[in-house]
């Protein structure tokens, strides 16, 4: 689109933008097995795409930890006939933005581009090449390994990184979720381009791919686009399911000494899955405990009443297998033991007595009343499409969200939280100072 046409569009669109009326999520599977989720919307002349694979760090092994991350990271640094500079230039020439994402379950890319063919077509062509034909050039692999290692070594000086890593290792003892997402300096150093090419050939396959499309394109266009992406890849097969996460059997406390002025506290255990039957009771229950910001008991007890921390929270991270339940805060070193006690008491009382009716009502009101805010931009809608697609949630998952929140009762919450959370066997990681041996010291 020329600048002039674009200005004309902008002038017109602001006047005629259509009213919001629910989400019409279209879903199909391509001939070679890729799942596609699509919402058509022409309010803005732009297109958002997400392509995800079950290729996160859970698909690493301990001796090659970091391989999944480096593979994803290297894919847009040389693909097909294009070197890394040409890929970056071709995207920049049309103002497109391509980013990678990566966690324990998922690896992939998003693309945001103007929808006009002059911009979208070149951007999509680059995107396709990156997905299907990464080259993993030797020299670039070595350079990016060095960068990754440098970043890991810097991160290892920071309490939040050390604490999170120790926490994940402790709650996922032996499970692939325990592996650090970017690997270890020693394991990254051993990776070679053949490892990356093999990983790509195994996991970046149509049957292991979820495509989400949001924006200014019609159904026929979306089909053509998604089918094109999928056709570039051999069908392959989805990886076998991840092993289940074991429950913890022993309460572990770990102090990692650190010079920082604050201690960082991490308390928790394996929590819930993305398709968990108790998803809504745990969501609402956790809002009252530590998910609801200033509405939550943890913020009330730690911050509002005692001024012990700037941030105090709890969350359930829903994953393919049981994701983490975590309580966290940062407090000055000499308040560490006090803050830990407040957290433990708050959790204990909450599990014993559950939310009050007023707290429950507040949680439901916020989650139901705030539902439209979850879908008020193309970017947010794309993220939901990608999530629903990847985890294969029911197509009405979003539509039924407010109803399911509203239906959560106090009994549901008590039952779910008590079944799920076990303070006696939770992991506690503290990075900083205190815990009993040095109690009372600064």
């Amino acid at each position, binding site marked *: 689109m020329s600048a002039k046409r674009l200005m004309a569009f902008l002038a017109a669109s602001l006047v005629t933008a259509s009213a919001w009326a629910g989400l019409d999520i279209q879903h199909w599977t391509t001939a070679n097995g890729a799942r596609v989720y699509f919402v058509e919307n022409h309010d803005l002349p732009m297109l958002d795409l997400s392509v995800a694979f079950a290729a996160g760090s859970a698909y690493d092994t301990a001796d090659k930890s970091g391989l999944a991350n480096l593979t994803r990271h290297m894919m847009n640094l040389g693909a097909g006939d294009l070197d890394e500079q040409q890929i970056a230039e071709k995207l920049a020439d049309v103002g497109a933005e391509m980013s990678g994402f990566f966690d324990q379950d998922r690896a992939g890319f998003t693309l945001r581009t103007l929808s006009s063919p002059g911009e979208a077509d070149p951007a999509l062509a680059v995107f396709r090449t990156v997905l299907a034909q990464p080259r993993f050039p030797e020299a670039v692999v070595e350079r990016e390994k060095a960068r990754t290692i*440098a970043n890991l070594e810097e991160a*290892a000086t920071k309490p939040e990184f050390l604490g999170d890593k120790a926490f994940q290792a402790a709650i996922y003892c032996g499970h692939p979720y325990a592996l650090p997402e970017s690997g270890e300096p020693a394991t990254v150093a051993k990776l070679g381009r053949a490892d990356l090419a093999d990983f790509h050939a195994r996991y970046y396959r149509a049957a292991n791919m979820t495509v989400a499309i949001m924006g200014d394109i019609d159904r026929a266009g979306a089909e053509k686009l998604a089918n094109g992406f999928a056709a570039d890849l051999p069908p392959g097969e989805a990886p076998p399911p991840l092993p289940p996460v074991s429950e913890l059997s022993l309460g572990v406390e770990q102090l990692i000494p650190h010079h920082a002025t604050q201690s960082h506290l991490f308390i928790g255990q394996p929590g819930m899955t993305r398709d968990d039957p108790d998803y809504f009771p745990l969501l609402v229950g956790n809002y009252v405990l530590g998910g*609801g910001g200033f509405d939550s008991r943890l913020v009330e007890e730690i911050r509002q009443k005692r001024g012990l921390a700037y941030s105090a929270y709890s969350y359930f991270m829903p994953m393919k297998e049981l994701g983490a339940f975590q309580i966290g805060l940062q407090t000055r070193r000499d308040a560490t033991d006090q803050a830990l006690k407040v957290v433990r008491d708050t959790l204990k009382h909450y599990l014993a007595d559950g939310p009050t009716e007023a707290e429950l009502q507040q949680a439901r*009101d916020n989650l139901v009343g705030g539902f439209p805010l979850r879908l008020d931009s193309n970017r947010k809608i794309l993220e939901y499409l990608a999530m629903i697609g990847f985890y294969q949630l029911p197509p009405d998952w979003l539509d039924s969200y407010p109803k399911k929140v509203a239906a959560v009762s106090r009994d549901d919450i008590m039952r779910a939280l008590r079944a799920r959370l076990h303070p006696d066997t939770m992991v506690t990681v503290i990075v900083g100072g205190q815990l009993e041996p040095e109690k009372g010291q600064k």
Partner: protein
Amino acid sequence: MRSLPPWITGTKMKPTLLLLLLVFAVQAQAQAETLERTLANGMKVIVKTDRRAPVAVSQVWYRVGSMDESNGTTGVAHALEHMMFKGTKDVPAGEFSKRIAAAGGRENAFTARDHTAYFQTLQADRLELALKLEADRMANLTLAPEEFAKEINVVMEERRMRTEDNPQARLYEVLMATAFQVHPYRHPVIGWMDDLKNMTAVDAKRWYSTWYVPNNATLVVVGDVDPAQVMGWAEQYFGVIPARELPVRKPQEEPEQQGIKEVTLKAPAKLPAVILSWQAPRLAKPAADWEPYALEVLAGVLDGNGSARLPKSLVKEKQLAVDVSAGYDPIARGPDQFMVDATPAEGKTVAEVEAALKSAIKDIQDNGVAGSELSRVKAQVLASQVFQQDSLFYQGMQIGEWETAGLSWKDRAVRFDKLKAVTAEQIREVARKYLIDDRLTVAVLDPQPMPADAKPQAPMMGGDHVR
């Protein structure tokens, strides 16, 4: 809210071009989409409609930030922002947040050098609640000393988390304190720790009664709203608050720098870091100025996209740095800066990296930039003009930032054309004029070993202490 907003003190310039080069559909706004009115008490109200979702954002911007503070009470703007959630006579401490949350809303606030802003996002038909509550705390804040005594501890924890324990953030703080000799930009937004330790409710109260008046505020509403109705509510709730005279704002202009300044910070870290910061002009007359636009495009050429000069040269080709960025934000009330920073790669020194950064600048001063680089940056400007419309909040931010910087959102009308009109020669000219040693401050992070008695150890399964 998992945690409170990561950008609450707004101290860090974001180097990415897309955050810097934001352009508006001005023609359309000038017609019917954005409505502006000034109430009799001097409060400005700006309403922009966006009907893509049944949602609205309300933002109240006060034209007061850390740059209006004095020695001894740095951080009071931000401390008062925290206290704004601590109750009025009709709305007790904590109730503001509770009522917004009960309506399904999200809310928070942020303090920056130039302004302090409070915002809520709600279903559009619940907007009135936000306006009513904001008007109440503009006029009736309680500021109880016992609430202040607790909250200042929270602020100190915030400073520990963001700054004390973060060598890169401390480097930025040291840089600013060195680059500015006179102007209050030399103080961190969150305040110096000693000032926080000695701050009292009286300091906060003085701040509140001086600056929190309708004639120092702008209400920005963006979303699926009826502008006439919003204007009616603004009149009803804010219009009744009396204006008060504002203090004279002394310019405290920074004297012309006359030679390079250098500062080193030693802190426990693994990697060194270097920041180069040049005194640069801010945007003062959007239609007449050209230099700020040229500097923006220059920042884009250096680091605006994956193919830009600095990552290409320093990270990919020479492999001197693991990371590099450039940034310039022309919207400011005070003196501006053009910044470049880098993290040296393993085995490379700060001196080598600094020399490479300077040689990249010199290359532009000597040889200018290629037409392809220029058109790439302009393509991003064009695209960002569409992309930024995806967020209601961001649309409000742009209006609020321009207004509190003393510019009008209407001035954005010329911005796109001005950016498009930037030539390679202009880029070369501003590089030659501004990116010179006499205007430069260099800050270096000199990494120290972790203190011996508290060395992070490899986390061990099973832990040290089992119960």
